[in-house]
């Protein structure tokens, strides 16, 4: 699914609210009826929040709540980064980094799931 396929009011709802602090510009949470609610922190400028809305929609479109990738990679993917490409063809001079051996193992296991290979 692509983020563009999601429809506000049907697939997701957006609330503009002032969070207690600046630590989080946005968040997304699944609802029991299969929809999602996105919260955007109004402490941040509107143009920044438009970017964050796209970020949260990518989380939904890519099924990140069910994903086995470590959280920092999930956030990078929601920012539009192509993780698989950068894993196999990292930019010159860089290597993919993981927080722990477990995180790397989860990532590799997911890559080589039978359904992904077939």
């Amino acid at each position, binding site marked *: 699914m692509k983020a563009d396929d999601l429809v506000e009011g049907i697939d997701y709802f957006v609330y503009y609210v002032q969070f207690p*602090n600046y630590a989080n510009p946005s968040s997304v949470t699944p609802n029991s009826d299969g929809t999602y609610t996105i919260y955007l922190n109004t402490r941040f400028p509107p143009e920044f929040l438009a970017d964050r809305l796209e970020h949260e929609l990518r989380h939904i479109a890519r099924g990140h709540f069910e994903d086995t990738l470590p959280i920092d990679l999930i956030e990078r993917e929601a920012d539009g980064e192509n993780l698989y490409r950068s894993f196999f063809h990292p930019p010159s001079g860089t290597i993919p980094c993981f927080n722990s051996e477990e995180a790397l193992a989860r990532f590799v296991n997911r890559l080589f799931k039978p359904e992904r290979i077939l």
Partner: protein
Amino acid sequence: MSYENETSREIIASNIRRLMRKKGVVATDVCKALDIPNATFSDWINAKTYPRISKIEKLAEYFGVSRSDIIDIYIDREDPAYEAARVKPYIDQNDTELLEYLEYLRTRPEARILMSTMRGATKEEVEENVRFIEALRKSRRES
């Protein structure tokens, strides 16, 4: 009652309260100046109803601001954190405590949540925002 209307009422209520503080006036001052019943104004600033366009224009004139200052989301551009907020979110991979907490939030069975997080954010700050969102969700479910 749609979500959109609820959000609009909250934005307008928050803006009127902020403009009252800035001008140093109380509700009765505004009601007297604009010839508005106290109960009506109370509903506006408690986000129960929102004013009609003609009243929004009167409010804007009274506070000496534009109409959009009443109805649009307010950004405090004088806040020093405003500039910091323009930096793209980024999680420090060395902050394992925060990473573990964010991972826990994403996968906990009772209420999963993904929190986009700014550089330099602490676990305590994120916890505070999570509590806020959970309270918001609870109050909306109950209403």
